[in-house]
């Protein structure tokens, strides 16, 4: 009993001594010497005390052992704290061993094209409204590009799109609307699709025109689809895409393959640097309308039973508005200083 008691006293004295020694160290090397002196596995003073356990009564051993472990824990904590103190000191004195303020090893950052970003965002919004994506050929026929879309070639409406024709027959589609026909030929309603892809017109390059440009076609055909659905769905899209508080306006317009037809404009709310909320001017974002019954008839769908709506949007123009790009040619130069801004 007395042996055990003296060992416990010894341990507590050693704890105090070690604490003082730790606090008195002035550099990491001295601290390491203190650590070895007290906690070293062979010659450390705590270990030496533990080695005397064998000499005391077995029933007293657990108490001494537990106390020894407690002292070890305390001292380890004190050592770590002192170590941290030295580390801070090093940083404060400005003579770092390892300067972690330098930049890390960078990687090249990739980026989607800004037009792809817009296309993806539009498709994501419509995906939540039940739309899947569809595709059609870019080299088309007059039937799909014009005639099936209720655009006779001898009508001035065909002039609106100056078309590029191909030697050997066919043409480059002047809009993505031929996908409407191809999808309605292959699938029965309900149809809810978006068709993103390039379209082509005989335009010379300037700040607002490109002979090749992206378009997104949208098409919904089912029983009971009305002008109210049309307005509601496109308004919902516009608010999700352009942000809450966006106003949406539908103006009458003309497209041979929709009736009634509309231009859709949005007025965005923008918060300025000073926190003031302002509204933009009306921005034209798409042409749209209820699918003309003649189009449905052309693909063998009964227009008395089914109705639908469709739209065509220019993601390049939208990207220009969204990112503040002023010249459409910037989108096709593929200058990496431009493209990497979208990383």
């Amino acid at each position, binding site marked *: 009993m007395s042996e055990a008691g003296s060992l416990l006293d010894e341990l507590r004295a050693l704890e105090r001594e070690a604490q003082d020694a730790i606090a008195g160290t002035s550099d990491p090397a001295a601290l390491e010497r203190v650590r070895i002196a007290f906690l070293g596995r062979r010659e450390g003073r705590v270990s030496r005390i533990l080695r005397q356990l064998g000499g005391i009564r077995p029933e007293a051993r657990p108490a001494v052992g537990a106390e020894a472990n407690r002292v070890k824990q305390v001292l380890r904590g004190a050592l770590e704290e002192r170590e941290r103190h030295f580390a801070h000191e090093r940083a404060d004195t400005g003579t770092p061993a390892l300067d972690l303020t330098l930049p890390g*090893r960078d990687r090249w950052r990739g980026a989607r094209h800004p037009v792809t970003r817009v296309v993806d965002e539009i498709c994501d919004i419509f995906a939540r409204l039940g739309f899947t994506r569809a595709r059609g*050929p870019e080299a088309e026929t007059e039937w799909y590009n014009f005639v099936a879309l209720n655009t006779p070639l001898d*009508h001035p409406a065909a002039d609106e799109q100056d078309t590029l024709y191909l030697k050997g*027959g066919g043409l480059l589609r002047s809009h993505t609307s031929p996908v409407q026909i191809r999808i309605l030929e292959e699938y029965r309603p309900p*149809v809810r699709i978006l068709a993103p892809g390039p379209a082509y017109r005989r335009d010379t390059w300037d700040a607002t025109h490109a002979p090749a440009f992206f378009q997104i076609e949208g098409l919904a055909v089912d029983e009971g689809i009305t002008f109210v659905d049309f307005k509601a769905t496109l*308004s919902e899209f516009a608010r999700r895409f352009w942000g809450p508080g966006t106003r949406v306006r539908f103006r009458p317009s003309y497209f041979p393959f929709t009736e009634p037809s509309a231009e859709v404009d949005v007025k965005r709310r923008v918060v300025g640097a000073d926190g003031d909320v302002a509204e933009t001017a009306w921005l034209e974002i798409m042409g749209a309308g209820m699918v003309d019954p003649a189009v449905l008839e052309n693909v063998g769908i009964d227009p008395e039973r089914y109705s639908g709506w469709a739209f065509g949007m220019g993601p390049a123009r939208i990207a220009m508005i969204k990112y503040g790009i002023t010249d459409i040619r910037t989108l096709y130069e593929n200058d990496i200083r431009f493209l990497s801004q979208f990383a």
Partner: protein
Amino acid sequence: MNVSRRWLQAVAPGLDLGAGEIASRLAMLGAPVEGVTDLTAGIAGVVIGRVERVRRHPNADRLTVCEVDGGNGAVQVVCGAPNVRAGACYPFVPVGARLPGNVRIKRVRIRGQESRGMLCSARELGLGTDHRGILELAGQFDPGSPFAPTVGLDDHRLDIEVSPNRGDLLSHVGVARELVGEGGIRLADLPGTIEHELAVRTGSPAVEGAGVRVRIDDPRQCWRYMAAVVSGVRVGPSPEWLASRLRAAGAHPINNVVDATNYVLLELGQPLHAFDLARVAGPEIVVRGARQGETVRTLDGEQRKLDEGMLLICDPGEALAIAGVMGGSESEIGEGTTDVLLECALFNPKGVRAARRALGMSTDASHRFERGVDPAGLERAIRRAVSIIVATAGGEPAPTLLDVCPRPWRAPVVMLRPERVEQLLGVRFEADDIVDLLEPLGYRCGPAAGAIKVTIPGHRSYDTLREVDLIEEIARAHGYDRFPDSMGAFRPGTVPDDPLLRLHDRLRTTLVGRGFLEAHTTAFAPADEGEVEVLNPVSAEESHLRRTVLFGLLHAVEHNFARGASDIRLFDMGAVFGAGGSGGSPRETNRLAVALTGRRRPRHWSVEDRPWDEWELRGLAEELVAVVLPGECSVEPGTFDSTFFEEGCEFLLRAADGSVVGGAGKVRADRVSAPVRAGPVWGLELELGDGARGRPDPAFRPLPAFPAVERDLALLIPDSLPARRVLEFLENGGGRDLVGVSVFDLFRGGDVPGTHRSVGFRLRYQSGRRTLTDSAVDRAVRRLVHRLKEEFGVEPRVGATGPGR
């Protein structure tokens, strides 16, 4: 279509709106206004000045020195006009204000006399051609009040975008009808005009009267031809009211007869043509198709070759005009004209369109005929034109109006079901509401069983012929913005998400994650880069459709090289075109291309810069091919496209069936113009198919329960033997427990013979049933070495075989 605000208000007296308000109303009716021009903006600084006193200029006979009150007390002005007099009011430009053309008026001395301002003529203000003197204003005004609004000269020109179905909006009356409804239109009497007593003589195919004969030979192309004769005219400049109206609508005054026809064109939308009757043989008008080889000199001075069948207005001998397109110079109205034959006709829109396209021209007349001219409006138009000509050019109208009408017009009737309106628009309209919306637009509604019987007016008889067209009119008249905005339930569609677009997503994610920038190149290429030719290209650089996507990417690499870049990583996905698709159309497939050059990573002081090389390219190719054709593809050396890649540094990408799906390699130096600092450019082109190849779900394999043992084996492989064959031998012939073979070293020199290289393979052995002992693995390696020697004559590099890391 250019419209004058004042002219609109003249035909729609109730239209009490400013130009901006008119523009926004029209936009919401489907005729957006692209621009509004304030026609008096250039003379905004001009005020009314009253001349208080006039005295002779002491040093010049023709000049006077006036005291002018321009609102701020009298100032001295030197004036050269003969008609200046004290007490009268004139347009006055004070010092500091501007004249049209941005001429700023300054304080000057004229022959020793100070002049502080300027009294103006009509021409100086851009208001006409009169320059005989300054513009004296009738009546008394407050000096200093703004000139244009005070005298009622202010006007705006609205540039309206008219869609091709709305030919009826190509006139002031048509635009006004949209704004105020049919009932609000009044054709005001014009200065000096009177209603003439003219009797219409109708017939077909020919009518005689007024001393002329008119005959239609082609009633398919000419539906109606009205003619009038005015004798004894004096051709000269138009009066100011007529000229200024035309100018306000953007037209140039020519002479009083031609201006009268243009006035009616702009007001009513009916094109008219005036012939010098003396130049019409007979006089007889024959409307017929052109004969082979026939030509006519048109008003613009061009000698036009005519296609056979093109509709002409002729006398018995030769062609006078191209019907609905342009008149001929032979019968043009000139100063010597005394008798005028006025044409007011209705031509087949398709014929006019075909003719003007064949001739490569478009005129105000053809633009309107193509889009449809009101078949019920001819008589009103020709009567108005006769009145204006007589009022402005004098003369006497012949009492008979000729009307050759082989195809009398009857108003179409369309049945409109109110429940169909609701089915399409989603809102219920009562029959009375429908009538109230349609009738102001000129439609006449009557009852019918379960429907409304709608009679279509002439001006909408080209584009509103179906029930759905009327439903659009209802929506438009009601106002699109008044429809509710409530989304209903929808059924899921039957169309699956397109697999190729999904593949695009996956490839984009892979490449963007690897630091590549997505480029957008177009499908156009010059002749040597494409097989499919564009018939009407914009430029030679865009005369064909590309056969590769890589071509455009290399162009983009050059663009970036030229702007100082040397680290470039680009990709693009798109269609390429080849000759010989089905049905004459090109074969169109979808591809991915990648181009890269420069360093693998951004510079960092801690590591050495390393450029892209063939192994990075091959690794990238293997990764991409695995995305496109999972688990069934290979990459091997081979020639894909020697026009792109350097010989001997090129890979072929193959599908499981052995077909080539792409290639990759070091781009030939002559393919890319690169600056000296640039490193090699690497490229890849990969066929994507339709993306329909499914991605199999990964099949789970149980994790190994026993440890693996590795052995390194360095083999001396002769240069004649591709290392791939040894690798495949090891992979396929190493026994069940050899679960992995990788190449960890390639070494030449030292003790390795010059015709050989040492390739280090790391062999990984692992059994699913037991822990492999060292001795068992060593035995297996020895067996392999023995078989390699038998198979290829390949020896291990002495002292280089040992346990793995």
